[in-house]
């Protein structure tokens, strides 16, 4: 590596938000032709730091230098002009527009300075794709292409604007292992071409695979920067969390008994009227955790909606505890033994403006003793809530506190408390640990295993392969609306990844 001034230097960056110190005097540097990983758990400050670099936030203290010279990046426009491109975790693409339109937005080629020259845009996109060896259709609407392809569009967006530094924020969160490998190949190509890449992640194995150097952040502070050689997962985890971390959940072997949930040949339509679930059948027995693994968008959402009574299946049968509940609404299903931990706790799990007591009563407010003939008894809700909050160690408020005042982890505890305390026979958990820190994740995992050990059936739908491999007693892979494989928990991530993209064990999928 040459001894030039680093392509990028961040010194003493500090950023405060109300109630939280997101970045605490962070130092970070980036060399040319390197892939530098930024590692930390949720809430460590990685995204904030990069948003500052991209001009979306303004730092309270600190400075940024590029090639030795101090720069002020007060907007994304500035950042782009300085050659910084960012691929966000949640894509900044406009679904109804085409690939070409998305890429040239704000730097559009024109005819006569007035009209949009769409053909020129198309051509430029096609040229770039060829140079960097992507396969992309410039005319395709973004909402119709795969997630991996969308990510490539995002990368092309940055390259179109002559980025020399590329920031990737949790890029593999939505990819299968194979797609992740493809991405790494692309990153290697880009590195050879002279780019510097910052790779934000909380996935230890990937970071070890792709990065040249790794910087670990914890609670807003930079802990250490180390080279890839010699780093281990264990050590990185320790740096990330500050203590020894259990990477796999401790659990006793399962003793599954009678089936509590059985699904037969289920067909479900999505919002557009197209079939998203195409003949799914499986069982969840008492005392086992069944995980459904798959790339997002293969029917998981519609499957969960159908099981939870939020969507009418087209055909097929769902039985809960032996009773047929096909097509029944959410209230019925929840009353007949289903617990549902929804995917998005703030949008779907909790009414943030309600107190914790009111939230905990969301399913039971109609029943005695909480109400009678429509008349509500709020103090009984409060009493019930007090017990639950203690049981589930919810911190940050009492029964009369509004749910919005709690942290994400505690909010999820409230959702869990509500669902588990009702003693459902089947617990449906959708992305239960998304956005949580390690402590909260441990808590949720423990509770799910507890539920399973007390004789409930747990159906876990998750995009985090580590979580799936750690918790599940059986793993079902869903692909394009069908269950394509079933695996025991000792399957390798690779095999799982292949099944998730529709391949089979013997084949290697085409690139």
């Amino acid at each position: 590596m040459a001894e030039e001034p680093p392509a990028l230097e961040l010194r003493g960056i500090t950023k405060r938000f109300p109630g939280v110190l997101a970045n605490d005097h962070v130092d970070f540097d980036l060399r040319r032709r390197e892939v530098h990983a930024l590692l930390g758990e949720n809430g460590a400050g990685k995204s904030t730091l990069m948003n500052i670099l991209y001009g979306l936030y303004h730092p309270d203290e600190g400075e940024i230098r590029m090639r030795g010279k101090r720069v002020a990046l007060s907007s994304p426009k500035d950042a782009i002009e300085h050659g910084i491109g960012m691929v966000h975790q949640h894509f900044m693409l406009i679904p109804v527009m085409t690939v070409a339109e998305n890429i040239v937005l704000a730097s559009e080629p024109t005819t006569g300075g007035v009209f949009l020259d769409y053909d020129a845009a198309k051509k430029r996109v096609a040229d770039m794709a060829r140079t960097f060896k992507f396969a992309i259709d410039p005319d395709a609407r973004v909402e119709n292409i795969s997630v991996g392809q969308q990510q490539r569009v995002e990368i092309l967006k940055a390259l179109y604007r002559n980025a020399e530094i590329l920031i990737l924020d949790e890029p593999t969160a939505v990819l299968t292992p194979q797609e992740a490998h493809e991405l790494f190949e692309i990153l290697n190509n880009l590195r050879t071409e002279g780019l510097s890449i910052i790779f934000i992640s909380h996935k230890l194995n990937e970071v070890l695979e792709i990065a040249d150097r790794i910087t670990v952040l914890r609670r807003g502070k930079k802990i250490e920067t180390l080279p890839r050689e010699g780093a281990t997962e264990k050590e990185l985890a320790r740096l990330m969390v500050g203590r020894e971390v259990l990477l796999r959940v401790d659990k006793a072997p399962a003793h599954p008994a009678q089936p509590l949930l059985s699904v037969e040949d289920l067909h479900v339509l999505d919002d557009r009227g197209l079939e998203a679930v195409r003949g799914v059948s499986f069982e969840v027995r008492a005392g086992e955790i069944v995980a459904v693994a798959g790339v997002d968008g293969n029917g998981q959402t519609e499957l969960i909606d159908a099981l939870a009574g939020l969507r009418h299946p087209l055909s097929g049968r769902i039985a809960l505890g032996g009773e047929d509940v096909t097509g029944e609404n959410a209230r019925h299903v929840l009353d007949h033994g289903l617990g549902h931990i929804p995917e998005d706790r703030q949008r779907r799990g909790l009414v943030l403006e309600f107190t914790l007591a009111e939230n905990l009563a969301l399913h039971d407010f109609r029943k005695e003793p909480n109400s009678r003939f429509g008349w509500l008894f709020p103090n009984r809700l409060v009493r019930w809530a007090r017990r639950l909050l203690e049981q589930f160690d919810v911190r940050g408020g009492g029964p009369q506190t509004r749910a919005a005042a709690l942290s994400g982890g505690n909010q999820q505890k409230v959702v869990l408390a509500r669902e588990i305390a009702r003693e459902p026979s089947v617990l449906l958990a959708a992305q239960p640990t998304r956005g949580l820190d390690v402590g909260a994740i441990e808590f949720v995992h423990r509770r799910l295993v507890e539920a399973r050990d007390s004789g409930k059936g747990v159906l876990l739908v998750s995009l985090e392969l580590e979580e799936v491999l750690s918790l599940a007693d059986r793993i079902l892979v869903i692909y394009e609306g069908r269950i394509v494989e079933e695996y025991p928990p000792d399957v390798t991530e690779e095999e799982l990844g292949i099944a998730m993209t529709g391949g089979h064990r013997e084949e290697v999928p085409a690139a």
Partner: protein
Amino acid sequence: MTDAPQPSPKPAEALPSVAARLAFYQRASGIVTPLLTAVLAFFIGGLVVLATTHKNPLNTYKEIFNGTGLNWLFPWIHGTERASAALNLQQTLIYATTLALTGLAVAFAFRCGLFNIGGQGQYIVGSLVAVQMGIWFASMSPVPHVLLAIVAASLAGAVWGGIAGFLRASVGAHEVITTIMLNWIAVWAGLYLIQGPLQDPRAALVQVSVTKEVSPHSKLPVWWGNSALQGLHIGFFVALAALVVYWLVVSRTTLGYEVRAVGFNAEAARYGGISVARNYFLAMAISGLFAGLAGAIDILGWQFRIDQTGITVASQIAFLGIAVALLGRNTPIGVFLAAMLFAALTTGTSTRNLDPSVFRPELAGNLTRIIQGLVVLFVGADLLILYIWRLRRKLKLDRSKVLPQEVPQA
């Protein structure tokens, strides 16, 4: 190479509903913000007065205040001044009754996250039904007759509101547009009826559009003042009762729980098993019920018949109801106080009270409208008011935990 489509939706950029935002700011600042909002609106109104009439706005406001009758509350007022203040206060309270009810109508819908601009149509429908009920059944004894008229009118308002609620619940048609269309339909239908089938035959001879008068038994008794001079009728107590009922329903019933849940977060309510569609319908129907009740009370309390002005003034009443609900932050006490404020403002600027040399009454009516508009505008922009009060700095610590879209994912 997969062709698997759609990435997952990004997690909550949950937009707080109107109900949620109003609830937050009410909690955060209690009475300060509404008070400040009103003060600011009056201040700007005063600037308008100054600019256009070059007169001292404080004088104008003082005259207006005297016209409201609120000076009756001051013990040092005596004699004829007191008597005329009493009359004025009765007028104010009569109007406050109406505004409290229409305010409740809008407030209840807001609690469910719905914006009911259809108060005008619901009020008109309620009035029409009340008039007819009052005219028919003349032989009934007073109490059942009045009850019948009130119940029928309220139901009519509920139906009119329920149409919009049903459309929202079933096909998702936005209630702002549907209620406004229903308003105009009610207006024209009402005008047609009082010009045609419902027209008083004697009035028809002189080409005046007005209905017959309701039978004496159905008129609401007056408890303060002289019934010949339009004293305050017991409808005032109906309004007070309605405020209590509103509070009870919202905070002590399962229906209120569901309505609030849907209003704050319809998605989470749905996931919890609550029927969002049913609540949209019920909320609009109950909302319309309050507005229809307002129409009935006005008819049986002091109007006793409907003429053309009766139809056209409904728009004023309905929009004031919106201002009342917003200023009152959808709470019963707030609605009452705000209703008092706007009622006082209207009586104070009415033709018979305002001395034209101080301020021309026709202008005053429009001035009131400007002030109302400003109130609604400022209420909508809670940020502005808080900024002015510098509560912003103090509240910033709380806000980050309450409004999810403000909190960045680090």
